């Protein structure tokens, strides 16, 4: 019994040090933890949010809204920064190799999760919890609010981990990593929209929120807020059911083994390799273009940084679309939305030098041709292909608001402009791509080139809208053909 307690204590201590100091120690700093600044900044943000909604909202929407906001913040951090994927192999090798009982490890892991959740989620919930106490004139509310935040964010983390483990069991570990990255990006992009819409709903009534009152009442955060505020029996039952179901799901999925699958690709089939084969004749450049495309899609650190950047302008555009834009201004507005992905590419390319497998960069660096120039050329091809699914998605949004012909014209025109400007976009790639460890990230200081390009693209979007008005689908088609010819000619040239 004493031995088990000592083992649990040792594991807990090691994991807490990993959680609190891991990030800063990997960056070569000693003595400074990453939790304190994170709690302070996010706690400050949650106070600002709660203070903005404090005046002018009644207790129920105030508590439900602020609880949802804090849980979203805490969950985003708990599944992202604090629970780092890189710690898992260390756990497997060190903990798995020691004569520690499985149950001891499980208890220690749950305790660690609980403590980190209490320190972080509890910390950032303090400000809205106290303001909820003021709102309801009840002293019991603040501690219960903090507890609810811890339980809900831990529950959401367990649900997320269970879903990831389920994907790993069914489709393999690499797919599970992709799944978790996409969910994190959606959480961030969706959370930004939900925050703005939620604030409006808290002040103006639940019908302003898409999905209305019924959707908001189906959220677990609303059940917890109701249970704390009024001790309503239905809400209490829902809270108990949520906790029970989450725990059960966590226990069941914890036993699932990861499906092993070979990471080596056996065939080079599919549309994208065919497109690269057609566009690029030189075998070396073709290989580099395929590698660049693969890295852009698969590199975890790039996706973690790039997806939110791409998600935020999309979220802003969707928000603008939800507000009442006059029908006459809609085509111009949508032309601008279509230009956003290309306009944001230079900002995303600032993160391109970073990759988790940066040490393999010598493979490209040893080429005879100038590797930086070779990378720029391969980015032209890869980004030209990547922009297609994004524009197809925008076409669906566009076609739901305008006629299909107008939407298609705008989409084709936007693709044409993006292809024509691809060499300018790719020229913003600085240094050797995928060659620096993400922990050594240096925040870029010079944004003049990306900002200038984004402004130019904004002006071009007005030109695209004007062309769409005067020449219709044919105008878009002409731009598509011209841009495509320019892009293909550059890809084929030696």
């Amino acid at each position: 019994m004493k031995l088990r307690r000592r083992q649990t204590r040792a594991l807990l201590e090691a994991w807490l040090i990993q959680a609190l100091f891991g990030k800063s120690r990997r960056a070569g700093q000693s003595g400074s933890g990453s939790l304190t600044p994170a709690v302070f900044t996010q706690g400050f943000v949650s106070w600002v949010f709660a203070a903005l909604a404090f005046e002018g909202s009644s207790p129920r929407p105030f508590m439900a809204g602020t609880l949802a906001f804090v849980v979203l913040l805490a969950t985003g951090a708990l599944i992202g920064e604090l629970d780092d994927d890189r710690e898992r192999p260390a756990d497997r090798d060190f903990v798995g190799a020691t004569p520690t009982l499985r149950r001891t490890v499980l208890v220690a892991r749950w305790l660690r999760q609980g403590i980190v959740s209490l320190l972080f989620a509890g910390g950032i919930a303090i400000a809205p919890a106290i303001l909820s106490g003021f709102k309801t004139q009840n002293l019991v509310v603040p501690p219960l609010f903090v507890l609810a935040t811890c339980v809900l964010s831990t529950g959401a983390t367990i649900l997320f981990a269970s879903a990831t483990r389920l994907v790993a069991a069914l489709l393999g570990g690499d797919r599970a990593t992709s799944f978790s990255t996409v969910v994190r990006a959606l959480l961030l992009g969706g959370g930004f929209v939900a925050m703005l819409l939620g604030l409006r709903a808290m002040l103006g009534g639940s019908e302003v929120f898409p999905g209305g009152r019924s959707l908001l009442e189906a959220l677990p955060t609303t059940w917890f807020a109701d249970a704390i505020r009024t001790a309503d029996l239905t809400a209490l039952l829902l809270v108990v059911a949520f906790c029970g179901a989450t725990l059960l799901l966590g226990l069941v999925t914890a036993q699932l083994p990861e499906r092993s699958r070979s990471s080596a690709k056996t065939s080079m089939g599919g549309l994208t390799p065919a497109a690269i084969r057609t566009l690029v004749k030189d075998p070396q450049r073709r290989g580099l273009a395929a590698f660049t495309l693969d890295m852009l899609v698969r590199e975890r650190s790039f996706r973690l940084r790039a997806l939110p950047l791409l998600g935020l302008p999309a979220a802003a555009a969707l928000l603008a679309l939800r507000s009442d834009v006059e029908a006459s201004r809609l085509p111009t507005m949508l032309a601008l939305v279509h230009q956003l992905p290309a306009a944001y590419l230079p900002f995303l390319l600032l993160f391109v030098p970073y990759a988790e497998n940066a040490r393999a960069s010598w493979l490209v660096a040893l080429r005879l041709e100038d590797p930086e120039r070779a990378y720029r050329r391969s980015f032209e091809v890869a980004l030209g292909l990547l922009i297609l699914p994004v524009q197809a998605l925008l076409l669906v949004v566009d076609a739901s608001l305008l006629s299909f012909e107008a939407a298609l014209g705008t989409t084709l025109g936007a693709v044409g402009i993006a292809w024509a400007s691809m060499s300018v976009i790719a020229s913003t790639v600085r240094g050797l791509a995928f060659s620096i460890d993400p922990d050594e990230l240096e925040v870029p200081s010079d944004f003049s080139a990306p900002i200038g390009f984004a402004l130019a693209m904004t002006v071009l979007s007005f030109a695209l809208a004007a062309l769409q008005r005067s020449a219709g689908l044919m105008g878009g088609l002409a731009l598509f053909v011209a841009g495509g010819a320019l892009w293909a000619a550059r890809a084929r040239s030696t």
Partner: protein
Amino acid sequence: MEDRDRDSGSASSTSTRGLRLELRSLLLVYAALTVLPLLTGFACQG
């Protein structure tokens, strides 16, 4: 062998000390985050 034990012991106690310091600075942050909403609440509700 003894040296190694001593080294690992001192490394462990340094880490534990770091953990304690971190928790202490967290308490300060919690205190700061408590004062802000108290001021807001009293200011808004008189």
